[in-house]
């Protein structure tokens, strides 16, 4: 990863004054592409940087600082709109957080971590174990429930309708004055029509059965994902009315750059970062940290 570490030094030697020369452009382009930012978003970021440098001459470290500010701005204003960076359940009312994503992205683990934070913060919390499909999915989320002292509502039958589990869990949440209901769903690839329809149904049940609730619908994206992440966000947005993104596995070396494109194109803010398999390994999203890691390695 010497590309990343020494980007500023390399640029210092190749950037003249004024617009970036070809070599410098290639350097920055490589950095962004290797972080999975994608060809299109990378082109756009570079052209914004170039435009700035045509207006005023900047020394290399200032050019890099400007590049970072472009990226932070993309993340802080999803789809060009400002949003409230504070993200937590509202006290004394039912909040339902629907957690969705493709197979193996980290949904169940994220539920476990969220339940832990929620309990620690004093919210009455409940889990809906609505992955009724994958082998031992219910057992897995139950272990996470035990770790955080959270009950998981499950249906003892195998291959039951997940919407029915959600229905039961909402009823339980309503009768117990639960403040945060976390809904774990089965992993599904976005090109599976029937599975996406199943997800829409779950979302409809939530809206119908709990009209009083504040609902957040979060897509879990694995940081090692490539450009398919964009497609995932598009289709899950439709089916589950997404309101945000959780980016997992950022404790690896992958930068999760596709999330930039997701934020930009779908206007969805990133809410949490998963950085490990432990119960404490979930953090609120910070555009500063994300961009520093992306650019500086």
């Amino acid at each position, binding site marked *: 990863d010497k590309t990343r570490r020494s980007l500023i030094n390399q640029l210092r030697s190749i950037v003249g004054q004024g617009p970036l020369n070809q070599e410098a452009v290639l350097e920055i382009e490589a950095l962004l592409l290797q972080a999975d930012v994608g060809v299109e978003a990378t082109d756009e970021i570079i052209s914004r940087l170039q435009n700035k440098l045509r207006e005023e001459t900047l020394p290399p470290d200032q050019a890099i600082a400007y590049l970072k500010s472009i990226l932070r701005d993309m993340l802080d204003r999803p789809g060009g709109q400002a949003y409230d960076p504070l993200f937590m359940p509202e006290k004394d009312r039912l909040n339902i957080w629907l957690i969705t994503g493709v197979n193996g992205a980290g949904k169940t683990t994220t539920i476990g971590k969220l339940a832990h934070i929620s309990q620690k913060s004093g919210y009455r919390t409940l889990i809906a174990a609505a992955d009724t499909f994958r082998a*031992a999915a219910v057992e897995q989320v*139950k272990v996470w429930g035990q770790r955080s002292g959270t009950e998981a509502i499950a249906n003892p039958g195998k291959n039951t309708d997940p919407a029915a589990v959600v229905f039961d869990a909402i009823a339980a949440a309503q009768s117990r004055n639960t403040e945060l209901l976390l809904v774990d769903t089965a992993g599904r690839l976005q090109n599976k029509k029937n599975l996406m329809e199943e997800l829409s149904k779950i979302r409809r049940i939530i809206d119908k059965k709990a009209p009083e609730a504040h609902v957040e619908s979060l897509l879990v994206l694995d940081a090692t994902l490539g450009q398919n992440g964009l497609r995932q966000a598009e289709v899950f947005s439709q089916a589950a009315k997404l309101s945000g993104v959780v980016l997992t596995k950022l404790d690896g070396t992958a930068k999760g750059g596709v999330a930039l494109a997701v934020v930009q194109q779908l206007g969805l803010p990133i809410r949490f970062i998963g950085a490990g398999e432990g119960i404490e390994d979930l953090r609120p999203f910070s555009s500063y940290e994300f961009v520093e890691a992306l650019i500086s390695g």
Partner: protein
Amino acid sequence: MFDALADRLESAWKKLRGQDKISEANIKEALREVRRALLEADANLQVVKEFVSEVEKKALGAEVIAGVRPDQQFIKIVHDELVEVMGEANVPLAHADTAPTIVLMAGLQGTGKTTASAKLALHLRKLERSCMLVATDVYRPAAIDQLLALGQQINIPVFEMGSDADPVEIARQGVERARAEGVDTVIIDTAGRLQIDQDMMAELARIKETVQPNETLLVVDAMTGQEAATLTRTFHDQIGITGAILTKMDGDSRGGAALSVRQISGQPIKFIGVGEKVEALQPFYPDRMASRILGMGDVLTLVEKA
């Protein structure tokens, strides 16, 4: 979301009306399009660079074929090169002279190792090879339950020692049991791990050292981005892999990770996972993969016929 490469190449060539031969001057834009298409398919940047320069060499040296437009000829060169890089034919799973054949599964978290272990067992049983699964993931909650449930579904025995035992010891005893029972192939499922997690990588190295597997398969998610190159390199350098399984191919990812895995490890991709069910495993075919990465259909048959 993506334009097929074929369309893009055609339009790149249209700008050069009247030129019916591939030349250094007119190939530039076409090469740029190939580079873009591969990057959009998530092939690794370094891998793409090498690949494109190889394509350039071959294209410039190519004979003109009568009746074939240069863009069509060019795309065939790209496709053939891709197939060549990914290994011409399908490579089956190893079969040891003396049983049991030992297969070790490895990979990042959530890629599909446990599912692939069960799929492989079912696949082998259909070939009349008896199997045993070994559960060494003592970390992920309910990982052992997951393998037990899968084993039960397909009626394949699962060896486990609970989640307090040492994974190396579980693997060792699992293989011993398989040998004692005369099982043909023993498949060792392992916990997901990051390639930068030194303790976990050392554990995997110890498992490998202890059981001396005939196959060490890297399980890679077909949706993986640039990271596919880095993780393959580290797993191959530190553990040594003999092949790979590309999972979640039933999705709509272009699967450029396949190119990185093959190019960097030099080892063949042996199977693809095409669904969550235990039957959803297929042999890997390089030519199909090449077409998928490039997003192309009938151009090839066109050229083939000419």
